[in-house]
């Protein structure tokens, strides 16, 4: 999957492949730093479907019941 992102997704504006970089995610007053694919130049962050529906969904639900 990771390889795929690097190979097939590019930033439309900068026309370059994505690379892993530091991103802060926030929800309901909580913040946590994570590594996600983004454009090394303009910083546009990419969230693949698997991540949104998997890990992120889990984290959201856990925080909502806190």
């Amino acid at each position: 999957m990771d390889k795929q992102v690097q190979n097939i997704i590019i930033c439309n504006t900068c026309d370059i492949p994505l690379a892993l970089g530091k991103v802060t995610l926030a929800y309901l007053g909580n913040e946590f730093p994570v590594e996600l694919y983004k454009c090394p130049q303009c910083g546009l962050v990419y969230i693949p479907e698997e991540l949104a529906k998997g890990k992120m969904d889990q984290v959201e639900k856990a925080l909502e019941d806190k």
Partner: protein
Amino acid sequence: MEQKVLKEREQQCVQEQPPGCTAACPVHVDVRGMVAAIQKEDYKAGVQLLYKMVPFPRIISRICDQPCQQACKRQEIDESIAVNELEKSCVDNSNELILNITPMPPKDKTIAIIGAGLSGLTAAVELGKKGYHVVIFEAKKLVGGSIRNIPEHQLPRQNIADDFAILKRIPLEINLHVIVNNHKDARTSLDHISATFDAVYLATGCIETNPHDWGLALDVGGGIAIHPVTLATSVPNIFAGGSLYLGPDHKSPITSISHGKIAANSIDRFLQNASLTASREKEGAFTSLLYTNIAGVEPQRRVRSADPNKGYTTEEAVKEAKRCLLCECLECVKVCEYLAHFHAYPKRYVREVYNNSSIVMGVHHANKMINACNLCGLCEQVCPGNLNMGEICQEARRIMVKKGKMPPRVHDFALRDMQFSTSEKFAFSRHQPGFASSSTVFFPGCQLSASSPEHVKSMYQFLCKKITDGVGLMLGCCGVPADWAGQENLFKETSKAIEDNWRKLGSPRVITGCPTCYSVFKREWPSMDVESIWTVLDKIGLPDQGEEPLAPLKLVVHDACTTRHEAALQQSIRKILHTLGHQVEELENSNEFTECCGYGGLMLFANKEIAHKMIKKRSQQSENDFLTYCAMCRDNFASQGKQSYHLLDLIFPTRQQDVAGKKGPGYSERQENRARLKRTLQKEVWGELADKEQCNVTLIISENVRQTLEELMILDSDIIAVISQAEHTGNKFKNMENNSYIASFKPASVTYWVEYSPQEDGFLVHNAYSHRLEIKGS
């Protein structure tokens, strides 16, 4: 919820009350549990339940006087359960009886037990187990008292010997041939024993002693004065019970054993300086408040054993055990899939809700349960204590919202959909064209307008024709989603807007198209003259059915849960159907006992799984097509494959095929239908210049993608927002593999992602998804 309210509500649920038999049993044997074990032929488990409460199970299984039978529910149908016979079966069919005695550290207090009958021995065993030093004084040469007089065939001596083996496992000192009283000839005086021992239990049975000889205060009847609850006498450290107390005419082996236990408890409390009387209502026999529904139980005589001397064979025992109703309530759980889903019953749920609302830190385990209830009120209707779980859940939701503890995802979508309906996009309020005032205003509601905009239009035109002094129109939402979601402020705001508009129209009579709007209006504005379209039609007559009326249908009515207490409204539905010539059958649970379609309380958004279970269960209650009079009921049943009509489908028949089987519109289409309804009416009826259709982006969406969007509750308007933003700013990714774009946008709290390709005539949508975690940048 306050502690006091919690207690009150817990008390409304009687499910945890013991069955009548157990409450009437002086030592509270779990008869239901024992009988259930016999049903499964697990005699060992059955006998253990007896042993738990009675130290001498082999004896009591032969001679119990069964006060439990007087309170057996089965008596109301035919005959009580043969409890003692079944106890005997348990004893006889278990080869071993295990009693684990955990020895307690010895206490330095000494207790005298006078009389080694069942009562004295029970007290001795109980106190011995607690670590007290127990000394027994028995006048005869054997322990056991009057049970020694029972013939062998009734009470085999082996049973006595086996039961009394326990006396050797507990350190007891047994003195035989010792006669105790306070008569001057007595060798051992009670006074002396009372002075040398810390406490005394007097249980000499019905021996012919003059009560005066004990030197204790007497009651008016001339017997020893004994406190009925604590068994205390006039001397603080002397307690008395058993047949000595009951008298020769009221002897009861099981009550004697119960007295032994009560006396042991009193002595323990006395020696620990604890209150003798505090919370002892549940000791000894009492009356249970448990409710058990016996409707439909077939009468069946008690099983008689083929050989009365031997008692039941195992077949007979199982057969008799199966007569037991295993009494419990669960009336509400039986009718509500939601209550059944969480595997318990309201008494437990109430406490879980309470705990959930009280915790500050940690996981709120009951959130899911609180938010899933459809608030339909059926539980209150069937509950003997009228407990309404819906009210409890709704109140808990309000608290969660106030504390900011409501998980945003639960109601977010429904609330945004409501906001669409209260916004300019749909909300609308006018007098009838050509009228300066309205005698009446029609409020069709947001869901009917979304599901059947054409019916709304027809109905409005019909009302204008029939009611000649001005029929205004108000489009909007009654605000119930906010109410169900526990959003008090939002609900108040919405109500306020409705009220303002209604007043501006001159406070006319209101006719609602949706049963839920009707219930909300009635509740919120008691002085408002509000009527449901159905009772109105029943009075003013139906629209002309034209040349070709619908062929008569065979239907069952599904009443909307929000009309539970609206008998007149429900009646008018039946009358209209009759007038239209359709054949009507009733579901078993209809009218005030109707079930929810799964939409109420926003259940469908909070817990799709349970909502679908509800729809399925309801659908299966009849083979016939459903007739509903709420747009959401209709669409919900149809969504799960149940053929369903809305009453307006029959009043305004169209040439359309398969009206009953047609799935309702999806979320996006619902909003579009509302907006279009407003525009159409504005243009066609009022001749106003309607707002332009705003959207200039065309989406191309396949069936598959459409389904994904519905499931994830992503609207076309969300997708358009993402694409517009991406195309405008250029902020998007390119998938080199298929040349599509991927972009995201966060209009409010949710971030939407769309994968799409521009086409000549619009944008082809490949996929969409969303998340709530916010990307804060690097």
